[in-house]
């Protein structure tokens, strides 16, 4: 799979080189796509385009679909109330039937958020190029795969040709060394990194996360980190595969039959010593506290034991204006301690933090406690399989006894395309990945946090530092 080259190469370069179908000076490279994940929101127009041009899907067997953005997280046996949502979900089902594509539908226990089911079913593998019409496709980079989001026109291109046109991005190494303190999670780590390099710090780059802190992360933690690469402007973020990766994959339904042989090939992927990145930054994990976003982009973030900034904390006039606008939208003055912020809603879910380890971490904090009277809190597992496992472990009982709503799998309140949304002015602690204006509902005020911080906030009714909280 990887050809030997005369110079040391990064993980990114090895994968890129191995997927070139055609390269020409001054043109975009044609890259082969190993896995094309599809969901209902960005595919309808692509399939229609195929039909209009009289084209078929070149590799249906490399295409996997599920409905996740629109799906209600309440009782699945009931018909979908929103007619337009229903139409979009039905359209995906019809298209998959017509073009012979594997589709994990609502009645399939393996249905879920596309970036949760791909890895858990073993579709996502090291060394692959994986694309999907969704920017959080960067999640799959956790396996040492080059994975990124594409627009609907590109979805159509991949369906028709199993390739994608790309200019080669630059490489950015984000190296994190040291130990995360107790109570500080992968979600806090990536929020901290985005705060440091800002929401366009990664634009034009493919990120590789390296360092001892990254090596120590579990696969689900790595997925949380890679998931939010796009929020720093990087369309892809990767972590080189290692034994943790191979152990995770063993036994999953769609991994190669001869896994040992595949592992031997995958072991050639990690970045060679002496290989160069276009840019590198280094960070000390021990400096990271639990994080809370305060503003209207993920880069506007502070430690949970910190205070909300004021515009005068910024030098650049555009940044001052952004800060002022964010404070106004979020109903904040600037200068108030994060721990003063009272919450109306709490959402545990999304492709960032809805896997079994996230739910276990949340349940650990929730056990034996009660959600505050003025908070409405919900837990949405990332897939039917995660839900099943959580119920086998009794996590659902812990959540329900504490007063959380326990739901079916889907994107849910991450982006409010389904019935789960914030009302105007509601303040929400969310384990999702975007806090843009109106993201979770028009006028909704989103604060991005880790599962543990979210649960603690649900119980206390305001933000607390889980490291010190009893």
């Amino acid at each position, binding site marked *: 799979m990887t050809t030997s080259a005369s110079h040391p190469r990064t993980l990114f370069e090895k994968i890129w080189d191995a997927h070139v*179908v*055609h390269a020409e000076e*001054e043109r*975009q490279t*044609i890259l*082969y796509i190993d896995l094309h994940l599809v969901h209902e*929101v*960005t595919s309808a*127009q692509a399939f*229609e385009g195929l039909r209009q*041009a009289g*084209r078929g899907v*070149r590799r249906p067997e490399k295409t996997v679909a599920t409905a996740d*953005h*629109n799906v209600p997280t309440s009782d699945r046996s009931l018909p979908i109330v*929103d007619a*337009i949502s229903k*139409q*979009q979900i039905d*359209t995906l089902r019809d298209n998959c039937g017509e073009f012979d594509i594997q589709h994990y539908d609502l009645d399939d226990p393996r249905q879920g958020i596309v970036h949760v089911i791909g890895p858990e079913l073993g579709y996502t593998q090291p060394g692959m190029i994986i694309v999907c*019409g*969704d*920017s959080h496709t960067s999640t799959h980079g956790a396996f040492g795969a080059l994975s*990124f989001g*594409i*627009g*609907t*026109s*590109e979805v*159509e*291109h991949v369906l*028709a*040709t*199993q*390739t994608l*046109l790309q*200019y080669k*991005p630059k490489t950015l190494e984000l190296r994190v060394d040291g130990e995360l303190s107790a109570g500080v999670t992968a979600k806090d780590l990536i929020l901290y990194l985005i705060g440091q390099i800002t*929401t*366009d710090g990664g*634009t*034009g780059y493919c990120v590789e996360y390296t360092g001892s802190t990254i090596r120590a992360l579990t696969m689900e933690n790595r997925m949380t980190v890679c998931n939010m690469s*796009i*929020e720093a*402007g990087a*369309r892809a973020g990767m972590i080189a595969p290692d034994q943790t990766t191979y152990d995770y994959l063993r036994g999953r339904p769609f991994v190669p039959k001869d896994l040992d042989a595949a592992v031997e090939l995958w072991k050639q992927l990690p970045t060679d010593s002496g290989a160069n990145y276009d840019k590198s930054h280094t960070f000390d994990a021990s400096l990271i506290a639990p994080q809370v976003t305060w503003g209207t*982009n993920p880069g506007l973030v502070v430690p949970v034991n910190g205070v909300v900034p004021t515009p005068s904390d910024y030098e650049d006039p*555009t940044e001052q*204006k*952004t800060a002022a*606008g964010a404070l106004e939208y979020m109903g904040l003055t600037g200068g108030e301690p994060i721990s003063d912020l009272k919450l109306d809603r709490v959402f545990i879910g999304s492709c960032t933090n809805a896997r079994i380890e996230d739910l276990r971490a949340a349940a650990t904090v929730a056990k034996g406690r009660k959600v505050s009277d003025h908070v409405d809190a919900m837990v949405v597992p990332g897939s039917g399989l995660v839900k099943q496992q959580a119920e086998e472990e009794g996590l659902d009982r812990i959540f329900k006894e504490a007063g959380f709503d326990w739901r079916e799998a889907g994107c849910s309140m991450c*982006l*409010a*395309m389904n019935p789960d949304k914030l009302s105007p002015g509601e303040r929400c602690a969310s384990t999702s990945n*975007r806090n*843009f*204006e*109106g*993201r979770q509902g*028009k006028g909704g005020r989103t604060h991005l946090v880790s599962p543990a911080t979210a649960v603690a906030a649900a119980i206390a009714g305001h933000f607390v530092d889980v490291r010190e909280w009893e």
Partner: protein
Amino acid sequence: MKAFTAHTGRVAAMDRANVDTDQIIPKQFLKRIERTGFGEFLFWDWAKLEDGSPHPEFELHHPHAEGASVLLARRNFGCGSSREHAPWALEDYGFRILIAPSFADIFYNNCFKNGMLPIQLSEDHVDELFLRSTKHGPYEITADLENHTVSDAHGFSTKFEVEPFRRHCLMNGLDDIGLTLEHAHKIEAFENARSE
């Protein structure tokens, strides 16, 4: 796809940075299964008051912005979600050209698929254009893709960069899929080599 060589048009100035695609086209409008008709939903939450009537202070509602086909904004325009519905909405509304100090990657790429030209200029040049848009309002600029220039009728002129192949496809209205399929034999060769 519509070809683009040069365009002169009125400028709508949006003095905001990090304009994300959730603002450009909010999620409730992503449920549509057709490619067209998104223009009326452009910047929905900024464009409307509580009661659904047009927000009088929204930049695109300024009298000088009427009929605008050029959007001027600050850095990191189009960040966030990959939704191609964002360029569809801008294009359907009437924009042909976007000018900013920087664009998010996926959004930038999506623009070219829809016959729209995103132009990256320096922060200084963008500052200058914002000044001129208030001084000479209503304000028009000309973008010439053939000659790589952005200019106005009041003495402003600067060059911009765009990858040669993107420029070629945009100027000739070329269809990506058709171009790739000219190399179909190479795709087949790649697949065959893989299965050995």
